[in-house]
C-alpha cells in the first residue's frame, strides 16, 4: 500500500479533495508554512538580511565616524547601545557586523556546498580509486580540528593578494575574502560525506540503471539525473553551514585573524570588549553576543526544520 503524507490524510479527513502529486518543494513549503517556529526563525533571518543590506547604505562611513570626546559612553537616546573605544555607535557597529557575518556565511557556503556536492557526487558515483582518493582527502582534512585548519590556512596565505590593483582584488591575509575562501575550501567535508552516501544509494535505483541501459553517458546521468535529486541536501547544508561560518568568522576575528581593522565584526567587538565587563562596560560585548546568539539560534532551528521538510526520512522526533 502506498504511503501518503500526513497533510493529505488531514485534508481527506476534512472532506477536501487532496492535491495529489505535489512536488518535493511545494510539499516542503507547505510543511514549513505550518511550522510557526520555522516561520519566526525565517522572519528573523530575513530581518538580519535586510539589516545587513540597508546598514551599508545607512552607515557607509561608520569607520570614520569616530568621536574621541564621546568614547565608551553607556546607552542613551542618542546612542541606544552606547559607544565604543573610538566614540562610534555600537548599534551601528552591531548592524554592520550582521553584514560581515552574513557575507562571510553566504560566500563561504557558496564555495563549500557546491564543492562538497561535486566531490561527493563524483566519489559516490564513480567509486573505485576516485572514491578512495576523495575519501582519503576528506578524512585527512577532517582529522585536523576545524579551527586549527582555518588558522593554518589564514597564516599560509597571509601575504597573498589575488587580482591586485583591480576591482576584484582579494587580500587573502587581511581582507574578508581570505576568511570566506579559507572557510569555503575547508568546510566541504560534511556535505561531501552526505552526498557521497546518497549518490551511492541513488546510483542503484531503477531509473539510473535504465538510463545506463539505454547507453546514456555516465557524466550526463550524474549531472542530469542524479544531481537534481541532491539539491535538498545542498540547501540543508547551506543553511546549517551558515551557522558554522558565522561562528568561525567570529572566532577568527576574536583571535585577530579575521576581518581587517576598521571592518565591523562581532568577533572584533567581543575581542575589544572582553575586559570591559570588569569595569561595568557591558554594552559592546552584550550587543555582539546578543546579535550573534539570535541569528545562530534562528539559523539552527530553521536549518533543522528545513531538513525535516525536505527530507522527511531524517525528521527528528
Amino acid at each position, binding site marked *: 500500500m502506498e504511503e501518503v503524507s500526513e497533510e493529505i490524510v488531514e485534508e481527506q479527513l476534512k472532506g477536501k479533495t487532496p492535491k495529489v502529486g505535489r512536488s518535493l518543494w511545494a510539499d516542503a513549503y507547505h510543511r514549513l508554512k505550518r511550522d510557526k517556529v520555522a516561520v519566526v526563525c525565517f522572519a528573523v533571518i530575513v530581518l538580519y538580511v535586510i539589516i545587513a543590506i540597508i546598514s551599508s547604505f545607512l552607515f557607509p562611513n561608520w*569607520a570614520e565616524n569616530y568621536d574621541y570626546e564621546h*568614547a565608551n559612553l553607556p546607552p542613551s537616546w542618542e546612542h541606544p547601545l552606547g559607544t565604543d573605544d573610538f566614540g562610534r555607535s555600537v548599534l551601528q557597529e552591531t548592524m554592520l557586523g550582521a553584514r560581515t557575518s552574513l557575507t562571510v556565511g553566504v560566500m563561504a557556503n557558496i564555495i563549500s556546498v557546491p564543492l562538497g556536492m561535486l566531490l561527493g557526487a563524483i566519489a559516490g558515483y564513480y567509486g573505485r580509486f576516485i572514491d578512495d582518493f576523495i575519501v582519503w582527502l576528506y578524512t585527512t582534512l577532517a582529522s585536523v580540528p576545524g579551527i586549527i585548519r582555518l588558522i593554518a590556512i589564514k597564516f599560509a596565505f597571509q601575504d597573498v593578494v589575488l587580482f591586485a590593483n583591480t576591482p576584484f582584488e582579494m587580500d587573502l591575509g*587581511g581582507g574578508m575574502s581570505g576568511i570566506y575562501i579559507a572557510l569555503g575550501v575547508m568546510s566541504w567535508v560534511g556535505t561531501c560525506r552526505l552526498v557521497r552516501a546518497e549518490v551511492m544509494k541513488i546510483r542503484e535505483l531503477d531509473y539510473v540503471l535504465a538510463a545506463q541501459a539505454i547507453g546514456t553517458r555516465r557524466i550526463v546521468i550524474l549531472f542530469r539525473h542524479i544531481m537534481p535529486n541532491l539539491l535538498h541536501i545542498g540547501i540543508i547544508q547551506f543553511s546549517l553551514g551558515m551557522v558554522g561560518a558565522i561562528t568561525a568568522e567570529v572566532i577568527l576575528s576574536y583571535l585577530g585573524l579575521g576581518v581587517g*581593522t*576598521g571592518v565591523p565584526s562581532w568577533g572584533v567587538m567581543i575581542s575589544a570588549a572582553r*575586559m570591559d565587563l*570588569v569595569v561595568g562596560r557591558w554594552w559592546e560585548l552584550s550587543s555582539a553576543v546578543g546579535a550573534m546568539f539570535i541569528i545562530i539560534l534562528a539559523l539552527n532551528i530553521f536549518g533543522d526544520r528545513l531538513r525535516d521538510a525536505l527530507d522527511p526520512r531524517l525528521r527528528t522526533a
Partner: protein
Amino acid sequence: MKYFYVIALLITVGLALLPMTYLQGEGEDEYIGKVVNYTTYGATVKSLDPATCGDVTSAVIQGNIYEGLYWYHYLKRPLEIVPQLADGMPEISDDGLTYTIKIKRGVKYSRNPCFGKNPDGTYKTRTVRAADFVLAFKRVADYHINTGLAWAFLSGRIVGLDEWRKKSKSYPAGDFSRYDLPVEGLRALDDYTFQIKLRKKFPQMMYVLAMHVYAPIPREAVDYWLGTEDDGKGGRRPIPINKRVCEFRDYRMVVGTGPYMFKEFVRKNRIVLVRNPDFRNQYYPTEGAPGDKEKGLLADAGKKVPFIDVIRYDYVAESYSAWMRFLTRQTDSCGIPKEVFKSVITPGKKLGEKWRKKGIRLYTYSPPVVYWLVFNMEDPIVGASKSLRQALCLAYDVENHIKILYNGRGKRATNILPSLFKEHDLAGPGPYYRLDLQAARKKLEQAKKELARQGKLVDGKIPQLRLDLPGNDRAAYRMGEFAQQQFRKLGIDLKVIGNDWATLQEKVNNKRCQIYTMGWHADYPDPENFLQLFYSPNIAKGTNNANYSNPEYDRLYERARVLPDCPERRQLYVKMVRIISEDCPVLLLSEPISFFLTYKWMKNIKPHPVGYGYTRFRRIDTVLRKKMGGR
C-alpha cells in the same frame, strides 16, 4: 573479596581528596622565615645571556644576576656613573684612547657546576678576573652570537675587535678556541687590571661600560655548559663541535656576580631568584638627590644589601589578572591596566583617595623613551616623498592617540630626543610634529606632484600604504585602527598588518616594512644614543632601521661623536635634531609616562630611568605586609 568494597571506597575518597593537597600553595613552605618579593611579568623573557639581552623584561631579570664594570647611582639625579665591579673610575690616557680599569678584588661568581664540586658536594665558585671581561667583550663581538645592540655600541670602536669578529666567522660556531685569539684593544694586564684601547675618541664609552650586557663571563661556563653535556653516568662528555650552541639558554648555565641567582625558571610560568650567598658586601647609598631624605629614601643608608631574600615573578599575560592579584595583596607592586585606569587615577593624575586608604602608593616617572612610526626611507613611496611624510606627521592626532590608546599616559614627542635631555629644548619642536590638517592637505598636494613626477601614483592617488605592528592582539589592532583613521583624513588607505615580534624584526632587518611602529629607550643618558639611530653606516648594524641616509647629517654626527660634552657638541646635536625634524624619517608619537603602584610595605622605591638591578635596594616591611593582609 570482603575487602574489595573497603579498598574501592578508600581509593575513591583518596582520589576525591587529592586535589586538596594543592590548596596549601605551591612551595610556600620553603619561603618561611625569608623575605619574599612577589611580583608578576607579562612578556616573554627572550634572553638569559647578557650578550644577547635586548628587551626590557630580560634586562629586568638579568639586572639582578649580572653586573657590569660600572652602573648608575641608585638615587642621584642627574644620573651619575659609579663603579660596580670596577675598583674606582678608569684611568684614561691623555689622548682619550686607552681605558685602564682596576677590578674589585674578591668579587665571586654564584656557585655553579662549571667550577667543580667541593668535597662536601656543594658547587665551587671563583673570583672575577680581568680575563672574564675580555671574554665578555669577545662574546659580544662573536659573529656566531646574535648580539644585536650590544655589538652595535662596540662596532668600529675597539682596536682589533672588528678584525677578531671577521676571524670568528671563519670558525665553526661550536669551536670556542676562537676565544683564545687575542684582541689588541682588549687586554687583561693582570688578574685585576683590564685595559681597553679605542680606535678613536668615544666620549660615550663610560656609558657603554655601565651596561650589564658586558658583564664578565667565566670561561669555565662556556666550556662546561656549551662544550660538554651530561653523559648519563654522573659525568660529562664533549658535545661534537657541529652540535654546540653559543648562547646560554638554560637557567642552570647562568653564572653572575649579582645579589641573586636563579632557583627556578619555567618559561611563561614563573621565575624564582634567590639570594646569592657569595655576593660581596654592598651597602645602601648614603647620599641621594635633594628631597630623597624627606621621602625616607635614605632611611637604610649604609646598610648591607640586598634586603630581599627571594624574588618570585609569576607569568600573568593578562594585565587585569595581574591587577586582581595585586588588589588581593598577592603581589607587592603592579602596573595599572588600561581598563581600570580612570577609576584608579584622578584627572589630575593622582592616586584616588579610595586606593590611598587601601595602603597603595603611586609612583610616576618619565623614562627616556620616544615612540614613533618609522618610515622605511628605502621604500619607493614613503621614502621617495618628503612632503608625504611631512603631511602624515601633520595629520596625525597624537594627543588623542595618547588619550585614547594610553589613557593619557604620555605627552606628545616634538622632536626625536626625550624632553629629559637639554638638547631637546634647544632644538625646539619640529615644524611638522603638530596637528594641522590644513597644512597637511597642502603638503599632500605637493607629495602627489612629487610622486606623479616619479610615476608612482595609482589612478591619480597615493597607493595604499602598509603599517606593520609588533603584535597580533587587540591592543595592537586598536593602534592600527587609530592610525587608519588618521591617514584616512588625507584620503590615504592604510593596510594594518599584525606580526609577532620575531617576524617584525625579520621584516625590518630585510627592509620589507613600509611603515612600522617602534620606539627607543635610552641605553645611556646622552642624546648621541638617539642620534646614532639615523647615522647611515648604522643601517648595516641594524640600529638605523629607518634606513635614513643624509650626508650632511653623517658629517655632523662624525664630528660630534668624538667631542666631550661641550657647547660645540651641543650645537651639533641641535643641528642634527633639526635635520631629522625637517626630513621626518619618523612620525613622532609619544614620550610615555609610567605609572606603577606598590603597597606601603614596599620601601626605598625610586624608579630608575636607565639602569637595571636596583631591586637589591628595595626593602619589604614584612610585618606590615602580614598585618595588612598580604602574604
